[in-house]
């Protein structure tokens, strides 16, 4: 699986999880190109958004990532690496 597909998947997941801040985030394009990263703190995910993000990942990939596990991941690039490790 290509890394940029995983990055696009993460951006889609955040949109589905109702994280509007990702849409216009200045780091979005750089993350997609693999040239930058975005910290979860900057996206201000509430608990519902975290749950939705985990659900999106699970129903679309079969990867079970719990909100607790997600809490330990600090950035989108970290999430991309975690997903790549599962696949």
């Amino acid at each position: 699986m290509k890394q940029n597909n995983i990055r696009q998947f993460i951006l889609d997941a955040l949109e589905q999880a109702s994280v509007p801040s990702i849409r216009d985030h200045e780091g979005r394009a750089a993350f997609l190109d693999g040239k930058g990263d975005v910290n979860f703190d900057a996206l201000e995910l509430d608990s519902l958004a975290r749950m939705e993000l985990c659900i999106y990942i699970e129903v679309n990939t079969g990867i079970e990532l719990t909100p607790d596990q997600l809490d330990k991941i600090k950035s989108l690039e970290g999430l991309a690496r975690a997903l790549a490790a599962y696949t």
Partner: protein
Amino acid sequence: MGKINGFAQLYPAREALVDERYSISFGELPPLIHKYEQYLCELGISPNCTVGLSISEQLPHVLVCLALLKLRAHQVTLDTRESPQYITTICDRLDVSRIIRLADGFNSVAAGLRDFDVTIREGATVEPFLQHDRDPLIFAMTSGTTQGPRIVPYTEHILARQAMRYDGFNFDRVLALPSIQHDTPKRLRLMSLFRGETSLFYRGNTSTWRDIAQFVAEKNVDFLRITILNAITLSKQPGHRLAPTTSIDIGSTHISIGLRKLIQKNLSETLYVHYGSTESGRIAMTTPDEHDERECVGQPLKGVTVEIVDGHGVPIPAGQIGEIRVRGEGMVSGYHDDLEESARRFRDGWYYPGDLGSITVDGKLIVSGRKDDMMILNGFNIYPAEIERAFERHPEVVAAAAFPIRSRSHGEIPAVAVELKQGSKITEQALMRYSRERLGIRCPRKVIIVDRMPRNALGKVSTKKIAAMAKGNLAIP
């Protein structure tokens, strides 16, 4: 048989059984049943043995069924389309000792001995296995577990009581499109006879509405029973709407307001939608003017009491969703060879169909879905029917079936399979947005567009097959 004999005395010329070739009046029926009974005796079938009917032709199936009742033998339909393994399992569970088939088609109502072929099953006992019940039993299959279907034993008396629930609905000539090899339409045909109605059989193509409409008009059918599968196919064929004096009856599964409107537009404006189960018979039925967005199944029928209860069995107020329970005359009291499930479903004189629903302030029943199907996503109760109704109101959606994706972390994640109208280009993402706006936290987290909804022979959607399809669809591209 007393009911039929009574109608034979009162209305000997009234047609009882009619198909394209034959017409048997109520006056002719008792001697014909007696003749068939004699054939069966000569073929070695005796009272109390259990007989499998492997007859796909409708008219001889009914005649043999009635003859077995008269002979006081128990019976079960062995659907000729089922696998040999399934048939063997059913025969073993019921200790079937004889299987009746037609030897060479059905060539005459006045059939002779040589028209039947009876197979003797080795090892079966020719004894009453339900010693306490002297009435001959008809066994019906209903959805079960991995161990096979649940088997529901009912008697002629139970059917006669169920038939009384239709008092007030005056139909004379009843046609059921589904095969007599299905237990529900078989019961409907027997009940028609017990009510003195004419039961008609259609042997033509059940996919062509023009031909069916022609048969209905020629034979003066005034009550046409169809399945959802029939309805989906036939309601797309405009131009032959029936006269308002002919009613259409549909049920056994959720019938959306969209489909109801399509049936009323293209098939018949006089539409009845019912709710019931094999165990209880028909529970509720709408009148033709009760179809609205609430998608109710009407008021309980005569002699049936319906309650909505909470998890402790306490009735809850109108409008609140809870578990449906029913009681009344004409219900079975348990399953064959399944004490555990019998104890779960039949409690304190009530039958629990396993459905969730509510009763409106004006007394109409709304079925929300199967209790077992209710999904709990991180503590939120989500009802499949709620999702399905939201999607089926989308102008480009024909049918929707919600199902859970089971998750160790979240419980049951709701998902939905959607069948679109022909030519629709709407995407799964657009449908996701649509549902999120309407359902919020209860929206499905996955939408799958399917070419055709997988359904069983009676049109019920197979959510197991859909869930399997969803499982095979997991990957980042």
